[in-house]
C-alpha cells in the first residue's frame, strides 16, 4: 500500500516535471524584451500601414516593448540596445536600402523575425533552410491535421522554406492548390529566429502569426476571448444598449463594452441615463473600458489637457458608480509619447483596437510601452466570414495572446437582432473577468479604481453598485467673484435700455401732442 502511494507520488512528480518542461518556451526568452520593428515602407497605396499597426498591437499584447523604425531611418549600432529585431517587408517591389541595418542584423545575436517577402540568403542561412520562391499560386492555410483551414487570396509570389532542420517548429502549413498539393511551412521557428512569409491582421493567418510571434518571444499562452462591444458613446441608442446587456446577462455571457464619455454637462438627464445603463451593465456581468476620445487639432503640448480630460471622465464616472476596468484605445495611441504618458499609463489593462482611417498624433515617437495586460481587439467578422474555410468562431479555439473579439454597437432593434444571431454562431467559452481572477487598476489623479474577482474598489474600498442613481455629494459650483466693473456694465445695459424706452415713449407722446397743437392752430375757434 505504502509502495503504491509512493509510486503514485513519484508518477505525479514526474508528470508535473515533464509538464513544466514542455510548458517551457522552446525558444530563448528575452529578459527584458525590447524589440526593434523595422519596416521598409508604409505602402499606404495598398493600405498596408494597417499591417504595421497590427504587428505593433500584437507585440504589445505579447508583452514586448516595441520600437518601430522605417529602414531608411535606421542608424548603425542601434540594434545593440535591443533583444530582438523584426524585419517587415511591406513593399516587396523595392529593396531594403540600408546596408547598416542589413549588416547589424546579420551580426545580431538576439531574437530575429522576418515578416513578408524578400527573405535574404543570409536570413535563410540563419534559419538553416533553403528558400523556395513560388509564383502565381493559391494556397490553403491549415493546421497539420487539416481540421482548421482557410483559403488564401491568389498570391503572385511567396517565399517559402524547404529543407528545414529537425529542430525547426512549424506553425501552420500552406497547402498549394495546384495538382501537386504540396505543403510548405507558414510560421517557422528555428532557435531564436523566426519567419512568416506574409502577415494578415485577421482570420486564421492572424491566429497562427500571433502564435508564432508569441512562441518566438517565449510568451505563448492560452486565452479565452473577451466579448467586447465597441464604439459605444453617450450618443448611442441607450434603449438598445440596455436590451443588449440584458440579453447577454440572460444568456450568461460575460462581456465588456468600450465607451467614450463626456466630462461636462454631467448634470443633464441624458448623462444620468447613460450612467444608469452603464451601471446595469456592471450588474449584469459586464465590464466597462473607457475609450480614449477622438482627436482634433492637438499639438505636442496637449498632454496636460488630455490628462485633465481623462481624470474628469473617470471622476464623473465614479460619482455615478461606473468603474472602468481599463482603457480602450486605437493602437496608434501607444505609439505617441503624449497619449501614452497622459492617458494610457493611468491603467494597467489596455484594450488595443484598430486605427482609424487617418490617425492624428500629438507627438509620435513609435516607442510603445507594455502593460500588465494589453488585449488585442479582433473584429468578429474576421472569425465569421472565412471564405471557403473552417468557421473559426464555431471551432472556438483559444487564442495565443489576450484577445477581445469585438462587435460594433448596434443602434437599432434590427441590428441588435443581427448581433444576437451572429453571436449565437460563435462557440467561444467567453472570458469572464469576474471569475477568472482578473485584477485591474486605474490611477487617476487622487482616485484609484480597482477590480478584483468581480468586486469594484474605489480608493481601496469595496463598492456595491446600485441600480438607482447614487446620492453622491455634489459640490456647489464655485461662482467666480463678479468684478464690480462687470456688474457696472451689466447694470449699465439695463439702465440704458430703460432710459431709452422711457425717452422713446415720451418722444411718441410729444409727437402726438405736438401734432394736436399744430392742427388746433389752424382750427377755427
Amino acid at each position, binding site marked *: 500500500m505504502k509502495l503504491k502511494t509512493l509510486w503514485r507520488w513519484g508518477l505525479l512528480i514526474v508528470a508535473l516535471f515533464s509538464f513544466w518542461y514542455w510548458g517551457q518556451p522552446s525558444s530563448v526568452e528575452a529578459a527584458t524584451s525590447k524589440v526593434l520593428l523595422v519596416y521598409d515602407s508604409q505602402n499606404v497605396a495598398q493600405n498596408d500601414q494597417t499591417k504595421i499597426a497590427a504587428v505593433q498591437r500584437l507585440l504589445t499584447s505579447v508583452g514586448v516593448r516595441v520600437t518601430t523604425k522605417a529602414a531608411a531611418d535606421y542608424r548603425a549600432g542601434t540594434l545593440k540596445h535591443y533583444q530582438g529585431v523584426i524585419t517587415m517587408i511591406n513593399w516587396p517591389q523595392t529593396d531594403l536600402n540600408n546596408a547598416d541595418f542589413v549588416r547589424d542584423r546579420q551580426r545580431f545575436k538576439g531574437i530575429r523575425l522576418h515578416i513578408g517577402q524578400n527573405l535574404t540568403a543570409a536570413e535563410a542561412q540563419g534559419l538553416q533552410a533553403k528558400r523556395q520562391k513560388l509564383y502565381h499560386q493559391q494556397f490553403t492555410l491549415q493546421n497539420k491535421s487539416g481540421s482548421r483551414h482557410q483559403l488564401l487570396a491568389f498570391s503572385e509570389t511567396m517565399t517559402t522554406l524547404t529543407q528545414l532542420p529537425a529542430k525547426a517548429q512549424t506553425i501552420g502549413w500552406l497547402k498549394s492548390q495546384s495538382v501537386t498539393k504540396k505543403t510548405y511551412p507558414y510560421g517557422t521557428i528555428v532557435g531564436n529566429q523566426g519567419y512568416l512569409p506574409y502577415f494578415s491582421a485577421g482570420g486564421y493567418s492572424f491566429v497562427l502569426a500571433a502564435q508564432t510571434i508569441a512562441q518566438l518571444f517565449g510568451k505563448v499562452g492560452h486565452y479565452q476571448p473577451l466579448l467586447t462591444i465597441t464604439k459605444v458613446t453617450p450618443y448611442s441608442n441607450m434603449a438598445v444598449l440596455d436590451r443588449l446587456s440584458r440579453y447577454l446577462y440572460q444568456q450568461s455571457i460575460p462581456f465588456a463594452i468600450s465607451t467614450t*464619455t463626456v466630462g461636462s*454637462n454631467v448634470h443633464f*438627464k441624458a448623462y444620468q441615463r447613460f450612467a444608469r445603463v452603464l451601471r446595469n451593465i456592471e450588474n449584469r456581468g459586464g465590464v466597462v473600458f473607457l475609450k480614449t*476620445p477622438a482627436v482634433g*487639432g492637438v499639438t505636442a503640448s496637449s498632454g496636460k489637457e488630455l490628462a485633465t480630460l481623462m481624470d474628469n471622465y473617470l471622476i464623473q464616472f465614479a460619482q455615478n458608480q461606473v468603474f472602468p476596468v481599463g482603457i480602450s484605445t486605437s493602437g496608434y495611441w501607444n505609439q505617441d509619447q503624449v497619449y501614452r504618458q497622459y492617458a494610457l499609463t493611468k491603467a494597467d489593462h489596455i484594450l488595443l483596437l484598430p486605427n482609424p482611417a487617418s490617425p492624428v498624433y500629438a507627438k509620435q515617437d513609435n516607442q510603445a510601452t507594455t502593460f500588465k495586460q494589453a488585449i488585442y481587439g479582433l473584429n468578429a467578422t474576421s472569425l465569421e466570414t472565412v471564405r471557403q474555410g473552417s468557421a473559426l468562431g464555431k471551432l472556438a479555439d483559444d487564442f495565443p495572446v489576450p484577445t477581445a473579439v469585438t462587435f460594433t454597437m448596434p443602434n437599432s432593434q434590427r441590428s441588435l437582432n443581427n448581433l444576437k444571431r451572429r453571436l449565437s454562431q460563435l462557440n467561444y467559452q467567453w472570458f469572464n473577468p469576474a471569475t477568472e481572477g482578473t485584477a485591474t487598476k486605474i490611477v487617476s489623479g487622487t482616485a484609484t479604481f480597482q477590480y478584483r474577482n468581480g468586486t469594484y474598489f474605489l480608493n481601496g474600498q469595496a463598492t456595491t453598485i446600485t441600480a438607482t442613481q447614487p446620492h453622491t455629494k455634489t459640490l456647489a459650483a464655485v461662482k467666480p467673484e463678479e468684478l464690480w466693473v462687470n456688474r457696472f456694465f451689466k447694470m449699465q445695459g439695463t439702465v440704458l*435700455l430703460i432710459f431709452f424706452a422711457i425717452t422713446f415713449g415720451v418722444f411718441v407722446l410729444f409727437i402726438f401732442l405736438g401734432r394736436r397743437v399744430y392742427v388746433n392752430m389752424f382750427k377755427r375757434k
Partner: protein
Amino acid sequence: MPKLKQAYFRAIKVFKRILPPPLLAMLICAGLAGYLIFIPPINGLADNGDFYRAMYSNGIYKLLGTHYSYFSYVTQHFGLMQYYNENQSVIFSSQPWFVHLAVFFNKIFYSKTVFDLRFMGLVNYVLYLGAIYLLTDALTFPSKRLRNYLIAALVVFVFGDSSFTLYFNSFFAEPQMLSLTMYSFASFILLARQRYQHRWPLLLLFAISTLVLIASKSQNAPLALSFTVVALGLLFLPHFQAQRLYIFAGIGVLLVTGVLTYKLIGKDFAYVNQYQAFSHGVLTQTGDPSKALAKNGIDEQYALMKDQDYYAKQFATIQPSQSYVEKNLLSKYGFGWIVKYYLQHPKQFGKLMDLAAADVMITQTKAVGDYTKASGASPGKQLTFFTGYSSIAGAFFPQKFAFNCLLAVALVMVYAVGFYNDLKHGEIEGVLKFFQVTGLLTIFIFVPIIAIVGDGDADLAKHIFMAPVSLDLIFVLFVSDILNHRLWHAYHEGGPTT
C-alpha cells in the same frame, strides 16, 4: 496783425488744397495699417482652422517641415503648389479673386514657390485705402469747412482701428467685406450728394461692390435683401424713368446673387453650420435641454453635445463628421426645426440674442493670436496698438439686444425726418440716406439673428462682423451730418437755412 491773420488763412487754404480731408484720412490709415502689416515683425490673424478654404483651392499650402500654428501664431510664409492642383473650391465665393491677385503679385515680385502673407495684406490694403478715401469724400462733400478734418479724424479713429486692419494679413474674407461695404456705402452717399456730373460710374461702383460683397461668403447671402432695401432708394433719383430698366435689372441680379450664394454652400460646410447651430445654439443658454429635445423628436442623449465644435479643438467624445452623426442627428433637423424650437423657447432665444448683442461691437478676433512666433510674443497675444475705438465700443456698448432694436427704430425715425423734408422739397439726399441707413440697420438687427439660428454662438464675433461695420458706418454718417448740419435736410452751402 491782419497780415498775420491773412497769412494764417492762406496757409490753411493751401493746406486744404494740398491735403484735403479724404487724402489726409487715407494717408494716416495707410501709415497705421502699413506699419501693422508690412513692417516686420508683422501682425495679422492666426489660422482658426478656416484658412484651408481659401488656401488649397488657390494653390497655397502649409510649408512642410515647419510647425504650422493654429490659433496661437500668425504664419507668414506658405508654399505655392507647382503642379496640377486637384483641390476644388469648397465654397462658392468671390474671395478667390483676391487671393489669386495676391498670388499673382507674389509670383512677380517675390517668389514662385513661397507665398508671403504680406501680399495678401497688400491686396487688402490697396482695396481698403481706396475705400477710406471714397468714404471720407462722401461724408465731407461738398462742404469745405475746417471741421471736415474732424470728420476725417473720426473716419481714421473708427475704420483705421487695428481690429479691422489686422484682418488684412489673413485668409479671411472679412477684409474684403469691410472695404466692399465701404465702397458700396460711399458710392451710394456720393450719388445722393450728386458728386459727379455723370451718374453711371457711381452706380456701377455701387452695383459691383455690393455684388462682390454678397458673393464673398455664404453667410452674406441674406445681405442681398438688405441691399435691396438700399437699392430701392435709387428709384427716387431724378430722371429715374430713363434708367428704370438698369436699376430693376440691377436689383434682380442682386437677389439672384444672394440666392446663388446661399444655394451653392458646399454640403460639408452646411453640415458644420447645421451642427453648430444645434450644439452652440439650441443646447445653450438653458438648464437641461434633454427633455426639450426628446419632445421635439431628437434623442435626448444628444443634449450632451452642448458646446461641442464640429472640428474639435483638441479632443472630442465623438467626431461630428462621422456618418453616425450625419445619419442619426443631422438628418433629424433643419433650419425650420431650429426656428420652431426657438419660437417654443423665446426666453432661451432672448438670452442668445443678448449674447450676440454683447459681441456686436467686439471686432477684434480674440480667439486667435495677432503675432508671429518669430516676434517672441506669447501664444495668442492680442495687439493693443490703435485699438481705441474697438476697445471703447466693445466695453461701453450696451449688451442688450432690445437696446439695439430701439436704437435702430430711433435712427430710422431721425432719418425719416430728412426723408420727408427732402421729398417735399424735391431733393434726393435725405431720401437716399434714409434708404441707406434703413438697409444698414436691417443688417445690424438681422445679421445677429441669422447668425444665432444658422450657426449658434460658435465664432459669433466673426459671424456678425457685418453688424458692427454697418453701425460704424451709420455712426460716422450721423456725426458728419450733425457737424455739417445736414441731418434733417439736404446740405445747403453756408449752413442752416431752415
